[in-house]
């Protein structure tokens, strides 16, 4: 007789014994810290003085497990990165689970463990959380939400209004890895590849940059919508144009091949472990050097510059063959194409 895997029941979210067991046996041991262990209605945190940065994000990725990460790691790194690119040192996160009835407990364990590992790697604590279960069909397996707070580093004073003509655009590494990996493992599209998501927390790298390099004007992580979306946001928000050079943009050959096969533009493809920084011309070299000294910034490159706007602020790409084209804001979901 085959053993049936243990599964989530609606009662696991019901506030009774089953829920208590779930918390005490599967959650607390993994995230153990004094604040969380109190199981208070709210976490009490003593924070260093300074400006608090606060963010939240929900995670509904499919598939839940992919090469290079899973929804648990993503939920921690994603929120860590939102704080990191805001110039903050991430300190504490909340973690909320919405789990579909029937979800395998073994899978939940893997997700929780990987969230805990990611939190430890990124030196943040999960200090509060919530678990809800919903009837079969009301959610797709499991959804996660994390919120995070951090303290802004005193010399990280970022904003698109600070961007000036002549500033350099720095990209911390290869693009398209996460988006193409997810796609290659998605139901209905799946294809064999060696692709791996770049999912990683960037706070250690960004904090060291802010501590050592003056004149970083702006930073953002090019997640959904990819580099194209982030650069268009820079153009729109700064009222200045952005000119980038395709030859300087690092892309792994296997990512480019997959994108070409499906008819995707790597510029529009999601990343989960990269940032784009706009840096003063004087600081650009130092910023690049420090990035390349860090494992997560080894492939960093200066990919372009902020230029005067002619008619309207836009992002222009100088292509590999020396042609020029405009990089538009992507319009949501891209679809694989035929022919």
């Amino acid at each position, binding site marked *: 007789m085959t053993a049936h895997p243990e599964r989530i029941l609606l009662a696991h979210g019901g506030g009774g014994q089953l829920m208590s067991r779930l918390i005490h046996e599967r959650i607390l041991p993994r995230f153990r810290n004094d604040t969380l262990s109190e199981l208070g209605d709210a976490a009490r945190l003593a924070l260093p003085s300074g400006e608090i940065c606060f963010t939240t994000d929900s995670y509904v990725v499919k598939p839940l497990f992919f090469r290079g990460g899973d929804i648990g790691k993503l939920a921690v790194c994603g929120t860590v990165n939102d704080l990191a690119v805001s110039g903050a040192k991430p300190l504490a996160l909340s973690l909320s689970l919405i789990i579909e009835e029937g979800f395998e407990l073994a899978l939940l364990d893997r997700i929780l463990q990987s969230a805990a590992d990611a939190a430890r790697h990124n030196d943040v604590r999960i200090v509060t959380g919530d678990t809800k279960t919903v009837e079969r069909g009301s959610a797709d397996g499991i959804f996660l939400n994390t919120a995070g707070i951090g303290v802004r580093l005193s010399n990280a004073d970022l904003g698109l209004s600070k961007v000036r003509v002549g500033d350099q655009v720095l990209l911390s590494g290869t693009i398209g890895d996460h988006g193409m990996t997810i796609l290659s493992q998605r139901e*209905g*599209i799946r*294809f064999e590849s060696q692709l791996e998501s770049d999912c990683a927390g960037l706070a250690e790298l960004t904090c060291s940059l802010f501590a050592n390099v003056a004149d970083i004007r702006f930073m953002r992580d090019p997640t959904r919508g990819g580099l194209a979306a982030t650069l268009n946001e820079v153009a729109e928000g700064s009222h200045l144009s952005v000119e980038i050079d395709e030859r300087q943009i690092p892309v792994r050959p296997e990512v480019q091949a997959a994108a070409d096969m*499906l*008819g995707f*533009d790597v510029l529009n493809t999601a990343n989960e472990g990269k940032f784009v920084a706009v840096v003063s011309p004087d600081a650009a070299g130092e910023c690049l050097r420090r990035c390349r000294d860090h494992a997560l910034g080894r492939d960093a490159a200066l990919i372009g510059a902020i230029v005067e706007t002619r008619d309207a602020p*836009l992002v*222009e*790409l*100088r*292509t*590999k*063959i*020396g*042609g*020029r*084209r*405009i990089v*538009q804001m992507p*319009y*949501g979901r*891209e*679809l*694989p*194409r*035929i*022919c």
Partner: protein
Amino acid sequence: MLDRITHAQHTLEEACTKLGRPITIMEVCGTHTVSIFRSGVRSLLPERVKLLSGPGCPVCVTDQGYIDAVMQLADREDCLIATYGDMIRVPGSNGSLETRASHGNVKVVLSSEDALQLARENPGKNVVFIAVGFETTAPASAVVVKEAAAEGVENFFILSGHKLVLPAMRALLSGMNDRIDAFLCPGHVSVIIGSGAFAEIVEDYHRPCVVAGFEPVQIIEALAEISRQLAAGTAELKSLYGAVVTEKGNMAAQGIIAECFEPVDGYWRGLGRIAKSTLALRRQYGQFDAFGRFGLADGPGKETRGCRCGEVLCGLIEPIQCPLFAARCTPQTPVGPCMVSSEGTCSAWFKYGRRK
């Protein structure tokens, strides 16, 4: 690489000067369209070289009548639609497959094999594969039809909208657009039908035909070769995609197309009815024909008012001349198919900047 481009630019300049008039070249392959836009090829050409994107995007050339037939299938409870991603946002008279997909009976597949697999996994549903595309995708449809026949899969059907590229090129040159000086011939299609297939265009219409792959440098070199011929007053068939394309093409693929399909008169968006231009399943595979099985008409559809995709496809206007372009018709809210497919001319214009 940059040397080759400079050399090609010189040839193009010289030809324009010698001819003393603009040169109009049409590409008939959606992948060429995308590559040209994505790499900024237009920005490297002399002002007087005009590139037209012709009927090369499988979604764009599909008639509204076919799209409406797809929508009728999507509305049926007993049907599961398997489609290439391109088709999912094409607007029918009432909504698109994307809006229908919310009911869960539309699946995006990457290959015809995935569609047949859906049929095996869902014996209680009639799985209909939306079989569109040119000679490149037709062999894949033929293969699964034969597989389904061999296995006795009874719940698998295809709705063939497959098109042939040569009849469309002939139709264009037979009065629809006499400004076309030459064709940049498709890479993928030529792999199947062979570069020799375009000889009839060269002979009958005296138009240069040059086959190219998808590297932007090769595309520019093909344009230069075309301009050289035009300046010399000759029309020749050439292939720069020599490594991949042979003169006779892929005989096995041609064989399986011929075994399963026969060319019939078909409707094209913008081009209307073209004789022997569309592939229909042969009688012996009639049991897999979704048109017959579900009683669907394969007639001309009513095109959306104001949409000028048809004229864009014929190279008669540029997208920017359509009043809907970038106004009511954008990639978020496409009105016509040329805005839907990523390789559609309007979409490429919108996405990669409307410089030229």
